């Protein structure tokens, strides 16, 4: 068990370096020069001045050296400074990360609770009208992209009905309170939770259908156990196992969904920051954000495996 976890941890390390290296390489081979950012055409800059800029940012060194310099700084907690406004990258990400964690965390919680409940509900009524309609709805939930769902929600619940604010995280004219934050959170969190609800429902339904046909459930029923105890005491815990995997697997989907949802609802999180970085060609910020996203995704995968190993004693890892 410990050996297994250690091995998983060790495998994550090269993957981490590979991801950051790939992104570094992509930015490197893209046309255009990073120094373009500092060279104003109207200033008519000489070649020497350009070289001076290159030397100042360490851009005169070969890419491999620069990658390792960047990595060295990262391990000292220094992610560099933004091109666009000179603010430290780490502080910017830190500030925006909490907004996304709040949004994605709420969406994942909604998705897991509602999705798992619906999954059990439909599995216990297989082939009923409920089962049929909810399963079809979940197919729709997976097929509708988050930006279409976001626009529709915004149009219906904010513009037409006026129940919720159309964007941002806090009102402009007053200090944010818990209540205003919740009011701003509801719409984006609901949109972002659509795909998780559908996924959790399908997974749970499938797992539950497998479990309730198992021999030990029939035995329990044969002993005269009540249906309620069979469902909650025997089937449900085992059906939850694949759901744990889904928790970790949902993370990349949430990151992607967050980019769109945050854009539509002008939520000041990582998604909108990433677009700012991309549109402003803010290379240090881009690299820093990719690093954070890679870390989060890898940690989530690792935790998923850990949780799975802890939850299912049948699995041996030697």
């Amino acid at each position, binding site marked *: 068990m410990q050996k297994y976890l250690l091995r998983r941890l060790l495998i994550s390390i090269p993957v981490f370096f590979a991801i950051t290296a*790939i992104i570094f390489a992509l930015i490197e081979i893209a046309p255009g020069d990073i120094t373009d950012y500092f060279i104003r055409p109207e200033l008519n800059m000489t070649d020497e001045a350009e070289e001076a800029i290159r030397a100042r940012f360490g851009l005169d060194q070969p890419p491999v050296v620069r990658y390792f310099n960047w990595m060295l700084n990262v391990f000292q907690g220094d992610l560099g400074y933004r091109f666009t406004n000179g603010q430290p990258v780490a502080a910017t990400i830190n500030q925006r990360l909490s907004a996304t964690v709040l949004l994605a965390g709420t969406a994942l919680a909604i998705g897991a609770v509602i999705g798992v409940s619906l999954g059990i509900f439909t599995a216990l009524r297989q082939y009923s009208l409920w089962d049929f309609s909810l399963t079809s709805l979940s197919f729709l939930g997976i097929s509708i992209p988050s930006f279409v769902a976001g626009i529709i929600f915004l149009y219906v619940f904010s513009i037409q009905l006026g129940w919720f604010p159309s964007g941002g995280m806090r009102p402009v004219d007053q200090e944010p309170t818990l209540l205003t934050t919740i009011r701003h959170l509801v719409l984006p969190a609901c949109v972002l939770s659509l795909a998780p609800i559908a996924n959790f429902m399908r997974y749970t339904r499938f797992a539950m259908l497998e479990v309730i046909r198992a021999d030990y459930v029939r035995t329990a029923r044969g002993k005269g156990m009540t249906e309620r105890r069979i469902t909650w005491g025997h089937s449900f815990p085992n059906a939850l196992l694949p759901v744990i995997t889904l928790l970790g697997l949902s993370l990349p989907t949430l990151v992607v969904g967050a980019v769109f949802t945050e*854009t539509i609802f002008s939520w000041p999180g990582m998604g909108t920051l990433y677009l700012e970085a991309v549109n402003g060609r803010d290379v240090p910020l881009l690299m820093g954000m990719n690093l954070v996203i890679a870390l989060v995704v890898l940690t989530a995968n690792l935790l998923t495996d850990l949780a799975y190993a802890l939850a299912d004693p049948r699995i041996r890892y030697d």
Partner: protein
Amino acid sequence: MTNQTLSAAAPIPTLQQAQTAKADKNRVLRRFLRNWPAVISLSLVVIIVTMTIGAPLFQRYEYEQIDLRARAALPSAEHWLGTDRVGRDVWSRLLNGGQVSLVVGFGATLVSTLIGTVLGALAGYYRGWVDMVIMRITDIFMTFPSIIIMLTLAAMLPRSVWTIVFIIGLLSWTGTARMVRSQVMSIRELDYVLACRALGYTDVRIITRHILPNVFGSLVALVTFAIGSAILTEAGLSFLGLGVPPPMPSWGNMLEAARNLDILRNLPWMWIPPAIMLVLTVLAVNFVGDGIRDAVDPRMVL
């Protein structure tokens, strides 16, 4: 001597194979036709493809034609779906935008299927370190959300439809590679592959002429799903302003207009049609994919 016996014996299994293959195809077709959601979806896809490819036949205005007297006009007999703020006909932009969406969907899928099939076949056929390296690369691409890399690439590369095709294709081959690998791995153990090797065929010939044709059936379903997801990805990138560059319309960049609260509120005919077409097309394509999958191999899970 051995060569002679082999070549003499060769026609018989090929004939049988040909017959079973034909019977197989008929059975697959029958199974597909029994699946009515898939058949309806297929007809819908055919209609959409015809309408968008034949756009010049169904439109009354060019998609970039500006009508300054009818700016932001409501849907009418003149402009079936109204016009946008500079007076361009939404109906004709919808048809032409569909053309772009479909080109990206098919183009990107072609790229990703090529990459995925080549890598999957290499990994599955040669095993060993080739397999190890290719699968580790696949794992890396699978763990990291590919839209993130797509956004970075889309911002760095010159903007055009072909850039988008290339970017999406380059980053969506992992599923295909894994599927092809697992199929090739099991097929390469079959006796006829051993026979091919005994006949001294080159690896390239064995893979392309004798193994890959048998992977084809399962690949078709996967390709269908890939087209749907590529159409969505293009729409997503265009929605964020990083996809197909205007003035060329695509369903994604028509939807981008809805990011403007004023358009969202007051000009719903500008964004509701592309939203409906996008969801309808992708749903239909996925249903067709479902149907093909069930028809080709009912046990397969994608």
